C-alpha cells in the first residue's frame, strides 16, 4: 500500500508540492523549536538547554514506533523503505568532524538553513562554509575514496545487529532515550539549575505513551511474505496465475538483444545447475541477496528483471518475494529452462536430453561451461517457432531512492 513514492519532478505539480511541503513543515518545526538560534543549539553541549536532545530523540522514537506499527499492521513493507547503509569509517570520521563543526559553528546543515531563513548572519556564514566544505569534499574525493569506503556493512539495522525482534529493539530504543533524557536532566540541574525546567505534563504523558506503544507492538505479530501476498488484490493473484508475467523464450531472447531495455537475468537455481549452464549475463541469486538486488534495481528506469528458476512454481514464489520488496518490471522465464533447451538442444554439442531427466533440464550437460555456449544467447529467430504471447511492458519505476546521496 505504502509508500506512495511519487517521483520528484519539478514539472509534476503534485510531487513538487509534496516535496516542498515536507520541507516547509520541516523548516517550520525546526524554527519554532528554536533551532535557528545557535546559542540554544550549542547550549546542549554545556548542559544549559536540552532541547536538541529532547527534540531529536523524541522525533526518532515517535517515527520509529510508528514505522514499527505500520510494518506490523501490514501497511508498509519496511524492507522497501530507505535505510541508510552502514559504513563504519564514514559514520565515525564524518560524525566526529560534524561534532567538531557543531561546537565551532553552532549549527548542523538543516538548522543553519532555518537560521539563514530568519536572517541570522551567523546562519548565513555557516551555510556558505558548508557549501565550501561540500565543494572541497567533492574535489578531494579521489584521495579520500579508500578511507570513505572502509567498513562497508550494507543495509544493517539494529534488529540484525542484536539478532532480536523489532519490538524488543524498539523498547530498548525507548528506554535508551528516556535514560539519556534523565541523565541530561540530572546534569543540567546540577550545573544550570536556573534553566532547569521541571517535566511538563506533556512530557510525562508522551514518555509514558512511548513505553505503552512499544509494549503494545509485542502483541502484533510482524507479517511475513505469506501475509503480504494474501493482502494483494485479486487481480494481481489472477494475473500471476494466468501467466501474465511468464515470458517465453522468444521474447526473452529479443529482450536480451534489446538495447533500450536494461535487462537483468537472475538465476535462482542451485549453484551446480548454474555452473553447468545459464543464460548469457545471468546473475546467480540466492534468497539472502534479494533485498540488496531490489534496493539496487528499484528506481532504475528501463530495468527489467527476468527470473530463471527450476520450474514455474519456484519462479512464482520468487516473483512474489521480489514484488513484496517493491521491484517493478518483474517477469520470469515460463516453464524454467526446459522450453529453451529443448528448442535449441540440437545446437549444443554436449547437450542431450537424458531419459528420466525431465525435471532437471540441465542434467543433459556434460561440462560446466556456464554461459560459454552459443545457446546461452542463440541467434535471433531461434525460438520463433514457439508461440508465446508477449508480456513485457516497461513501466516507469516508482521509487527514486533515498538518503542524502
Amino acid at each position: 500500500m505504502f509508500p506512495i513514492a511519487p517521483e520528484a519532478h519539478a514539472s509534476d505539480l503534485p510531487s513538487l508540492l509534496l516535496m516542498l511541503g515536507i520541507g516547509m513543515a520541516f523548516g517550520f518545526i525546526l524554527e519554532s523549536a528554536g533551532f535557528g538560534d545557535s546559542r540554544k543549539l550549542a547550549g546542549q553541549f554545556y548542559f544549559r538547554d536540552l532541547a536538541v536532545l529532547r527534540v531529536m530523540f523524541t522525533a526518532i522514537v515517535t517515527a520509529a514506533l510508528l514505522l514499527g506499527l505500520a510494518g506490523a499492521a501490514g501497511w508498509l513493507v519496511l524492507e522497501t523503505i530507505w535505510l541508510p547503509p552502514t559504513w563504519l569509517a564514514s559514520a565515525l570520521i564524518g560524525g566526529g568532524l560534524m561534532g567538531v563543526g557543531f561546537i565551532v559553528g553552532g549549527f548542523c546543515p538543516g538548522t543553519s538553513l532555518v537560521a539563514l531563513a530568519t536572517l541570522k548572519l551567523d546562519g548565513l556564514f555557516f551555510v556558505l562554509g558548508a557549501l565550501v566544505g561540500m565543494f572541497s569534499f567533492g574535489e578531494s574525493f579521489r584521495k579520500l575514496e579508500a578511507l570513505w569506503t572502509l567498513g562497508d556493512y550494507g543495509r544493517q539495522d539494529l534488529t540484525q545487529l542484536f539478532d532480536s525482534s523489532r519490538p524488543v529493539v524498539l523498547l530498548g530504543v525507548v528506554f535508551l532515550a528516556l535514560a539519556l533524557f534523565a541523565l541530561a536532566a540530572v546534569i543540567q540541574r546540577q550545573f544550570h539549575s536556573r534553566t532547569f525546567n521541571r517535566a511538563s505534563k506533556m512530557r510525562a504523558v508522551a514518555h509514558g505513551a512511548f513505553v505503552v506503544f512499544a509494549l503494545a507492538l509485542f502483541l502484533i505479530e510482524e507479517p511475513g511474505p505469506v501475509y503480504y501476498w494474501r493482502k494483494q488484490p485479486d487481480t494481481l493473484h489472477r494475473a500471476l496465475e494466468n501467466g501474465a508475467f511468464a515470458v517465453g523464450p522468444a521474447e526473452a531472447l529479443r529482450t536480451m538483444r534489446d538495447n533500450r531495455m536494461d535487462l537483468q537475468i537472475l538465476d535462482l537455481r542451485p549453484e551446480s545447475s548454474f555452473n553447468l549452464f545459464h543464460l548469457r549475463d545471468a546473475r546467480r541469486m540466492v534468497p539472502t541477496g534479494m533485498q540488496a538486488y531490489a534496493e539496487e534495481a528499484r528506481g532504475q528506469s528501463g530495468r527489467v528483471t527476468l527470473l530463471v528458476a527450476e520450474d514455474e512454481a519456484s519462479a512464482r514464489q520468487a516473483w512474489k518475494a521480489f514484488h513484496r520488496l517493491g521491484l517493478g518490471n518483474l517477469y520470469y522465464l515460463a516453464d524454467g529452462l526446459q522450453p529453451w533447451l529443448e528448442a535449441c538442444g540440437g545446437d549444443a554439442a554436449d547437450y542431450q536430453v537424458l531419459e528420466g531427466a525431465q525435471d532437471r533440464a540441465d542434467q543433459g550437460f556434460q561440462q560446466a561451461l556456464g554461459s560459454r555456449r552459443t545457446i546461452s544467447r542463440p541467434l535471433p529467430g531461434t525460438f520463433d517457432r514457439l508461440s508465446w504471447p508477449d508480456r513485457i511492458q516497461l513501466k516507469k519505476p516508482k521509487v527514486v531512492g533515498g538518503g542524502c546521496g
Partner: protein
Amino acid sequence: MKHDLPQGGERYWNPTVAGLLLGLLLFGAFILTGHGLGASGGLHRLILMAQGLFQPDHILQNPYTAPMAASNTFDHWLVLQVIGVLIGGALSGVLHGRMRVETRRGPLLGKKQRWLFAFAGGVLMGFGARFARGCTSGLALSGGAMLSVGAWIFMFSVFIAAYTLARPLGRLWTQE
C-alpha cells in the same frame, strides 16, 4: 550579566511537542515518499549547479559528483526539500516575530569573530556531512528511526565529539 541563558527571552515550542511533530512529519515522509528527511545532499546539489556553470566537464569526470550532476538539479527531492525548509523557516520566523537581521553569538565573542567561526564550523560540517553520507536530518533522524546501525554509530560519534570539544572551546559559547 545574566547572559548564560540561551534564549534571549524567545519563546520556543516545548521540545517534547516539537519532537512529536517532527516524528510525525518524519513518519509521514517515509510513508509518502519511501525516504525520510534530508538537507546536506540538497545543498551539495546547489553548489554543483553553480560549479557546473564554469566547469561542466570537471564535475562529470568526478565519480562522486557525476551522478548528482547528471540530472536536473531541481528535479531532486533533496533540493526541493531544502527550498521548502527555507520557506518554512521564514514563515515560522515571521509568525513568531523572529525575522530580523542579527548575529547570535556567545557572550565573549564579537560579531566578526562569530562570523568567522560560523564559516569555519560550516566548512567542517559540510565536509563532514559528505564524508558521513548524510547529516543530522538525513542520517541521524531518518536512519535513526529506521534503526540503521550506521546512523546510530554516527549519532553517538557526533555527540561524543561535540561534548569532548565543548569545554576546550568554552570561550565560544559561555563566559568562561
